[in-house]
């Protein structure tokens, strides 16, 4: 097993909404379908709460890929999916500006029973990381942890 002291294993952070992706992950578990163990799923009420600085900070800490599994149009939170998409798009811009491959961040609509799409997202992120490698140990400094109005 790899530990942090050795060549570390990749880490994929999954922010999964309780009304969508988190239940989709549970559904995959109930079907006992295997996927890579380098995935760490955190439940979120809505991904709209995370500003761009959160993603940048996570990459700085050594997260190699982030999948935001939100509920898309099925979100129980009016306006939240659109806001999430806006934030992700702005984060892409900053990633480009600073030379970080935007493939490290994905936004996917995953419903409560979206087992196959859930597995596909993880597989694709693993394939991306196989291709582009771990996140660089030093990233260009992040801007002040501020969200842009609007």
């Amino acid at each position, binding site marked *: 097993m790899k530990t942090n002291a050795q060549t570390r294993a990749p880490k994929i952070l999954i922010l999964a909404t309780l009304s969508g992706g988190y239940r989709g*992950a549970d559904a995959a578990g109930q079907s006992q379908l295997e996927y890579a163990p380098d995935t760490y799923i955190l439940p979120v009420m809505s991904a*709209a709460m995370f500003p761009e600085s959160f993603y940048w900070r996570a990459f700085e800490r050594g997260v190699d890929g982030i999948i935001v599994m939100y509920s898309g149009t099925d979100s129980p939170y009016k306006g939240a999916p659109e*806001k999430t998409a806006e934030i992700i798009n702005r984060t892409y811009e900053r990633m480009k500006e600073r030379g970080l491959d935007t493939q490290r961040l994905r936004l996917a609509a995953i419903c409560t029973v979206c087992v196959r799409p859930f597995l596909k997202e993880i597989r694709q992120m693993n394939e991306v990381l196989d291709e582009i490698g771990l996140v660089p140990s030093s990233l260009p400094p992040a801007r002040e942890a501020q969200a842009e109005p609007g």
Partner: protein
Amino acid sequence: MPDTTGEPVPAEKGQVQPQSASPDEEPRIGVYVCHCGDNIGDVVDCEQTAEALGKLGNVVVSRSYIFMCSDPGQKLITDDIKEKGVNRVVVGACSMFLHEQTFRQAVSRAGLNPYLYYHIGLREQDSWVHHECPEEATEKAIRLMSAGVAKARLMRPLEPVRLEAAKHALVIGGGVAGLRAALDMARRGLKVTLVEKTHFLGGRTAQWEHVFPTDEDARTLLRGLIEKVLAEPNITIHTGAEVVAAKGYVGDFQIRIRQQPRGVSDDFEAVEQAIAACPVEVPDEFDYGLTTRKAIYRPYEECTPAGVVIDWEHCTRCEKCLEFSNNGGIRLDDAPHEFEINVGAMVVATGFRPYEPPQGELGYGEFPEVITLPQLERILASDGPTGGRLEWNGHPIRNLAMIHCVGSRQIEGVHKPQPDGNVNDYCSRVCCTATLSAANQIREYFPDVNIFDVYEDIRTYGRGHEDYYLQASENRITFLRYVAEETPEGVKAQKGDQQPRLGRVKDHLTWGEEIELPVDLVVLAVGVMPSPVDDLVVVFKISPGHDRFLLEVHPKLRPVETAVTGIVLAGAAQGPMNIQESCAAAGAAASKVEGLLSQGRVELEPYVAQVDPERCQGTGECVRVCPQEDAIHLETFSVSGREVQRAVVTPANCNGCGVCVSACPNRAIDVQGWRLDDYEAMVDALTAEIPALEGVV
């Protein structure tokens, strides 16, 4: 109306106030790793996980146990809270949707604020998906739970948002489940509004004559229930009505209902003349298309409400019926109207529809001699198209085959998918006994008819259901068994045949003998599908399962609740059920609603936005971006003699979506219980060099 301030309501006399641990006290964290029998323990090394977590800062107890959800498992937690001063609890176990509440209640029983608890799903999201790599699964368990510990260090005691609740429930669907739920709730003192999409009460039950397992007369059963509902002053019924919009939350849903007009007054007398005058003929859905009806119609003689209605979809406004409309008894210019009601909770009892085989499945749609079981039930009904005589196209039926599992237990790639691309891979459960019940009925009333029961499996699962199988077995009903890969072939007629034939059946009761059955009628025991509820799924944000029936939170532990608090399910909207099961589910749904609303107030999770007044600079960004109405606003305060504006949250109107959190330039607003600081700490823990890992994995 809700208490929109969302201020905590003082505990009533006699209630135990949970201890509200100070947010500033030193965290003393108890960590518990559940083996879940072998479900987690077979893959994740639970002892080593507990040992590793015990090395983390602030962790004062770290244990593993075979079943944390058991009474002894919960007692470990409560004893540690009382005896070791544990003031934050992290459990790694099965899904949070199963046992988060169990452990919160345990924590609360020990006097700790229930929100000082965090749950990690080690089973569904670790052991069950990483069988092949137990070492990595163990490392993952340690990292996930160390993230939980990191969050626990920052957790603060929370109080639920307590709101006033309307003691008024909405029931959607006027079949047996909806009627039963409405009656049960009304008898417990709740005001109930029932909306039924069609213009008549009774649902599918009205279309049957006999119902198993009691062989009761369905209309008598239904009439008794409807009479009680009509006599109940707490119940208001709207037929021809459907929900078109909804907003709000448990305790205070605002529901918009659209009601189609009946078009005919209750006292209209020239019913038969008006029906006869109508030139429109459309398939009669009440007889499953075996007959036709007019555009002014009633489904059956004793229907409730008793009058006729206009079928607006098919009425051509030719006005021929108006010739008999004295004093405006028929009104073809009536328009739908909309109105709003406020309810505290809802019961969704939208029922089912029978599977409609596609053209050609076992000869359906190609040969007129192939019908479905619901159509046979109408033929056997005394008010059906043949008056209860077993005949088809004017000819008596002498040989009849009934084929099970049509539209149930379908296999992707083998069976033709539905228009939405799905196949019905589930067992519809109720059709086996329904088929045997019909077979026995035919044997009783038409003893000379040869009946062939062609089945893949027979599942007579309920009390008294097996008796139908035994009765059929003893009563000259011939059984033939096929296997899924070799379904019977459709009906074909051969030259010189007096009857059509059910093509080859490879009968596994006679070791694979291939048999052709000359029959007059083939009856397909079609499965059960949910009534179309796409609109309700959108309006209420409730979830359908992969089988498209509406999904409960948990099939065993929370069997009638949806993920949306205050919306519960009753009957066949949730899955194939017979009348007995539908009524049981309706009773459970009614009890759940009563439990929610009977006190006139409900408690909501405290996961709402909270402003840090020290950081808030009154920019108003949160107000600008908030998608909810009246959830946050700016107020003027005096700070050091200076007037400043600060954001203020109205908890009852906040749903915790967090849009304001990412928008605030000063990081002055967070969602209680799910704060940005928590997530950053969890990411730090997930990515940290964890000393605890050394020498463990």
